[in-house]
């Protein structure tokens, strides 16, 4: 009798299953609008030219070795990352109350932050603190906080399906009604999966309520630079909250804006009230990291650090490579909307250009999504989420026609 006879088969992670199904499909016109990775207009993965350049420099540098990084990660990486999030002129950084924990992607940063909060926030080891995630949200948020030990994870109103926009009234209501000290996971920009962000005025209101009600701010920032093309614009909400005096966490990912998906480059930025608090916080972060992965991987952090800390490389990254990606996404949004409008597809399609970032919540319902996949071989998430990066000048007509057919034949 095996010790593991009772281990049940777990369902596959939806987004990866979608890609697996796509791969097996032999239809010549198949399109993958599932997983969130950038694609060129030839539908190819894109290693950023600046990344290629820096990788060559690293391989050729014989003075570099493969020794362990410190537990909290590469110092130059951590400081440069926090600077990218908070801005070059950040008063909080000048006050020495900002620290970073290098982590394995945005996921790793979220998990370390969640583990810390469960141990040290709102009492000691208080697993009952409510954690609020947007409805809908990135599907892994729930599991990250649950596996970190939180027992009470709740949705906050976010997406209004009827008006295809932000349910700001519902959102505010949830903020007002949340128990004091609840944790709120906020998407810094380019909300995943809806692509719908609060306006600056709405962010101000959110901050006002959160301050008054003593709610904890945990930003998830996976698309800085990628969303609008501007690092500053995409970090506006984070910086506003910091300027309002919040102690907060920011889980940063460099998967998308550096195209370094598989090197797992992330950073948990911690903004504390003062440097004394920060020191104690980081000492406890070390303990958490030590039993999770001991110390983080070196390669990706070196690439990002070299790039961010060298003016020419930074310029190439930002002004050339990031801009290329952001611009292509904006172009595809524009064209998809135009084509749907030209086809006379029922409904309004303004949300396609109003939404921001990699994803768009099309508004297609599950039956329509099934039609898209089965009949049209256009793969998208059951939620109706599409990855704009999967669109190219070669397939956009086919996709627009497919959406048109889905909307007109399936209710």
């Amino acid at each position: 009798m095996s010790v593991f006879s009772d281990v049940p088969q777990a369902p596959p992670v939806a987004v990866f299953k979608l890609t697996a199904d796509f791969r097996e499909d032999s239809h010549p016109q198949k399109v993958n609008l599932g997983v969130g990775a950038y694609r060129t207009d030839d539908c190819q993965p894109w290693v950023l030219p600046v990344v290629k350049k820096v990788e060559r420099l690293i391989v050729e540098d014989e003075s570099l070795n493969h020794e362990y990084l410190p537990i909290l990660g590469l110092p130059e990486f951590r400081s440069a990352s926090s600077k990218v999030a908070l801005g070059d002129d950040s008063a909080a950084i000048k006050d020495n109350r900002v620290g970073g924990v290098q982590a394995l992607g945005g996921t790793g940063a979220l998990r370390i932050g969640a583990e810390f909060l469960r141990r040290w926030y709102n009492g000691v080891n208080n697993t009952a603190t409510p954690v609020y995630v947007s409805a809908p949200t990135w599907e892994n948020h729930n599991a990250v906080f649950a596996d970190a030990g939180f027992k009470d994870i709740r949705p906050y109103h976010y997406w209004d399906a009827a008006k295809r926009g932000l349910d700001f009234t519902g959102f505010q209501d949830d903020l007002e009604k949340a128990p004091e000290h609840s944790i709120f996971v906020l998407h810094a920009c380019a909300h995943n999966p809806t692509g719908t962000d609060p306006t600056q005025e709405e962010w101000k209101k959110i901050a006002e309520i959160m301050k008054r009600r003593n709610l904890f701010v945990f930003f998830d920032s996976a698309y800085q630079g990628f969303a609008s093309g501007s690092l500053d614009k995409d970090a506006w909400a984070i910086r506003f909250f910091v300027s309002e005096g919040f102690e907060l966490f920011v889980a940063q990912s460099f998967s998308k804006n550096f195209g370094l998906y598989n090197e797992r480059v992330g950073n948990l930025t911690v903004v504390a009230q003062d440097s004394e608090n920060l020191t104690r916080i980081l000492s406890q972060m070390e303990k958490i990291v030590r039993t999770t992965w001991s110390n983080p991987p070196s390669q990706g952090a070196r690439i990002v650090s070299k790039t961010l800390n060298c003016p020419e490389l930074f310029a190439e990254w930002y002004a050339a490579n990031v801009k290329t990606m952001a611009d292509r996404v904006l172009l595809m949004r524009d064209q998809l909307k135009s084509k749907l409008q030209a086809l006379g597809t029922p409904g309004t399609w303004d949300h396609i250009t109003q939404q921001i970032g990699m994803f768009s919540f099309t508004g297609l319902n599950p039956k329509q999504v099934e039609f898209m996949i089965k009949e049209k071989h256009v793969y998208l998430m059951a939620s109706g989420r599409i990855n704009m990066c999967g669109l190219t000048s070669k397939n956009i007509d086919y996709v627009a026609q497919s959406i048109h057919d889905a909307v007109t034949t399936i209710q």
Partner: protein
Amino acid sequence: ICLQFSSLLLFCFGLCSSWWGGVQMGPPDPILGVTEAFKRDTNPKKMNLGVGAYRDDQGKPFVLSCVRKAEALIASKQLDKEYLPIGGLGEFTKACAQLALGNDSEVLKSSRNITVQTISGTGSLRIGANFLSRFHGGPRDVYLPKPSWGNHTPIFRDAGMQLKAYRYYDPSTCGFDFKGALEDISKIPEQSVILLHACAHNPTGVDPRPEQWKEIADIVKKRNLLVFFDMAYQGFASGDIDRDAWAVRYFIEQGHNIVLSQSFAKNMGLYGERVGGFTVVCKDAEEAKRVESQLKILIRPIYSNPPMNGARIASTILSTPDLRSLWLEEVHGMANRIIKMREQLAAGLKKNGSSHNWQHVIDQIGMFCFTGLKPEQVERIIKEYSVYMTKDGRISMAGVSSGNVGYLAEAIHAVTK
């Protein structure tokens, strides 16, 4: 005036209190603390025998040639940076399992193992601990050898398991307490988890002999224990990868369906790239599939999928014949240098006129040596000779070179005579 002052304080506290007032200062890591103190020391003869990272005979970090060659090969391929599967790079996990279990392994032939890529040894142990915590129906207790790697305990604890110990190291002989181990293991409640160091025990360097392993395997089977092997030094211990994996393979042959953690930090010098594997040997391929699906569910909310670079290097080395031969040579070379340093240290102590028996310095295996120094002696050797080691008297032989082994012998003799 006192009243006014205290209410002023309370007022200020209310206005500017932090969320984190109650966060205690975490204690410094005992091993890394050694390096910190070492760095501050200005003595030109100082020696860092703390952390277990290999050093060459000049005391420098060593990047293996096979690693540099593999990196050049990889760079020329211009690969993309797309996400790996949750379970990691397929070519890597296959090679990783083969390395541990042997090419002819019946387990591999019947596909009844699941091997996932992990964040080096720590990540592997943690995934394993989380898996056991969630799915092991037996007692929550994990039995560690006494002593064990310091990080084992917090890893299992954070995963929700409880820690117990079985006798292992005998301080009177600086060797293996075989009798004590067997006695303790024979009393472990059925279905408990027992952790075994596959080779080059950390921190003692004391390994059971093959006949002793056989008896351990026997009693573990009688007690129906779940075996968790930690293999962080395959190849590094004796210089021979098959010899170092002997215990793991023997247990499997005897019918133990083990779980296994592997690290490539030391044997490939890939420390900072975080390359490791976690294997569950299952009843059959069907069970392996179920277990795999659950491992993915565990991994996804920690880091989604593992880093590519190190796994790609390791996989390239393992599956490119001349790189693999080169690797085996270099691993052999590293192990040999350590063995030579052991011999020279023992000889040096004798030469200094030490009356103690230092045979254990030669008998112990792998990167670490449990010198037998007591805490007061450790304190003295650090203070007076700038020889840095952990409080338990453990030294990393990798930090010893032909240039400083003489000084080390002098220093140890001085504090122990």
